[in-house]
């Protein structure tokens, strides 16, 4: 390449990418390629030299404020406790020479939930995935951690149907007053974050914030014409006032289980008509079998008695 020849668009794009690459000197990681970019961070495929394995390394876009690194390490210790098959935990956390914070996570393979939905997963499969997500989140809550950024792109479904909740980088310790280890700030994704997250009200963010996000996730999975009970469950989970939401994730999951079992859900009080309709839907085959039997029986009584023809 001569000095007077300007670089092409392709080379320029490549240079911008490599210039954005994290400076990992002093760490045990080498970056390999970007896996995805978001508004707040970039995730890189990186190599952990010490353990000779690929990892996902997430680098936040802005440098950490003074004193934040220590709190991030404390948060990482909390996250490291999350030993659950549905959770991709943070392995490591640190600060790059340019002041940016990075997280190291297990690199997982599979399809993101938003991709799976676009590919046309059926309702039963979508609900199964949502329940698995809820179980993982409920486990985290029991360990004192709120995810704070549940959305389809943070859920991965593996080749064998295993469901993994990703990106615990902005998770919040229930006992702490800050999110992601920093000063109170607005974390989450519009459309999925609870009103208290929108406001940046760190003190108000708790397990019920994740209940809201799970409701938003359910709504995103339902499509345009959801069943009424499911729409009601999503609406209850997404109530602006926390007191009107499910008290916790298990309560939300119980209601989902009721729907899956064909029972009435707590989010949708039903009258006699709705109850009959639900029972009909639940026992549709039996109802039709009984009806067919009764019709046949009646026909037999009316027309089928021997000797009647002869008078």
């Amino acid at each position, binding site marked *: 390449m001569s000095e007077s020849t*300007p670089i*092409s668009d*392709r*080379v320029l794009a490549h240079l*911008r990418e490599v210039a*954005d690459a994290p*400076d990992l000197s002093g760490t045990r990681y080498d970056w390999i390629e970007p896996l995805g970019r978001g508004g707040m961070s970039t995730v890189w495929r990186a190599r952990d030299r010490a353990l000779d394995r690929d990892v996902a390394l997430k680098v936040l876009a802005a*440098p950490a404020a003074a004193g934040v690194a220590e709190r991030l390490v404390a948060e990482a210790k909390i996250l490291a406790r999350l030993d659950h098959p549905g959770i991709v935990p943070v392995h490591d956390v640190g600060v790059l020479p*340019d002041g940016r914070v990075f997280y190291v996570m297990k690199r997982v393979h599979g399809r993101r939930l938003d991709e799976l939905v676009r590919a046309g997963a059926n309702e039963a499969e979508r609900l199964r995935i949502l329940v698995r997500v809820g179980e993982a989140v409920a486990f985290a809550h029991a360990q004192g951690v709120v995810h704070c950024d549940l959305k389809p792109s943070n859920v991965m479904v593996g080749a064998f149907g295993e469901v993994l909740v990703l990106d615990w980088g902005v998770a919040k310790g229930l006992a702490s007053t800050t999110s992601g280890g920093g000063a109170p700030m607005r974390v989450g994704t519009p459309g999925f974050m609870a009103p208290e997250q929108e406001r940046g009200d760190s003190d108000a963010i708790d397990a019920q914030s994740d209940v809201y996000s799970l409701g938003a996730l359910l709504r995103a999975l339902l499509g345009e014409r959801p069943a009424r009970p499911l729409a009601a469950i999503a609406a209850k989970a997404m109530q602006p006032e926390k007191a009107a939401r499910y008290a916790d994730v298990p309560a939300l999951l119980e209601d989902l289980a009721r729907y899956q079992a064909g029972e009435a859900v707590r989010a949708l009080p039903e009258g006699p008509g709705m109850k009959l309709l639900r029972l009909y839907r639940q026992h549709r085959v039996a109802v039709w079998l009984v009806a067919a039997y009764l019709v046949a029986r009646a026909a037999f009584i009316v027309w089928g008695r021997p000797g009647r023809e002869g008078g």
Partner: protein
Amino acid sequence: MVAEDDERIPAAAARPSAFPATRLSVCEAVRSGDPAVRRVGWDALVEAYWKPVCRYVRLRWRADGEEAADLTQGFFARALEKEFFESFDPQRARFRTFLRVCLDGFVANVRQSAARLKRGGGAAPVALEPETAGAPLADGDLDACFHREWVRALFDAAIGDLRARCESEGKRQHFELFRKRDLEAAESDAPPSYDELARDSGLPVTQVTNLLAWARRALREAVLARLRALCASEQEFRDEARALLGFTPP
């Protein structure tokens, strides 16, 4: 991509390492009361904007290489003569946008005067005041076009800085790997792997990746150094760095 006609780039624009000669930003330097500082500022400004201006004139005003070079030269000469960059107010716009609007006004006036002469009219004075600059500020496409060329020139210059640094620090191998992997191979659909680079250069793969990592870090530093000098404020620098490289520098 636009073919380049850089033969007439002034010395200042062709001198890679003279750029961040002052801690002042270019915008501050060209408005300085000290003639020496002003001179350095002008050199840096011409160096940074010559190529983007020239390419922008070709794209936006459909000028051929010769005319684009004439207009670019005329623009900087007139801007220096009239000292109109002194009226730049960082509170109102980015310097890049201000310069682009002035450039559009200049070219529009030159073209208008040329048309008038063809029709037999007398020579009219060419206005170069920012207020009379022609194209509207809100035109996103024009801004995007100028911005794209400005980024290209910035990285071009940063590559020059990197090359100069590698030569002065005895790191020619670093630059050679960078050239092969990030400049030449980036044009290819099948760039050489690190293993292939290691084989070709007779180095272990880990050393290849280390040398490349250093070169890329140095490139980023060069881009940021140039960017910092070109921005009128710290906030503008941070915003530009975020947009260019995806992160906010400390």
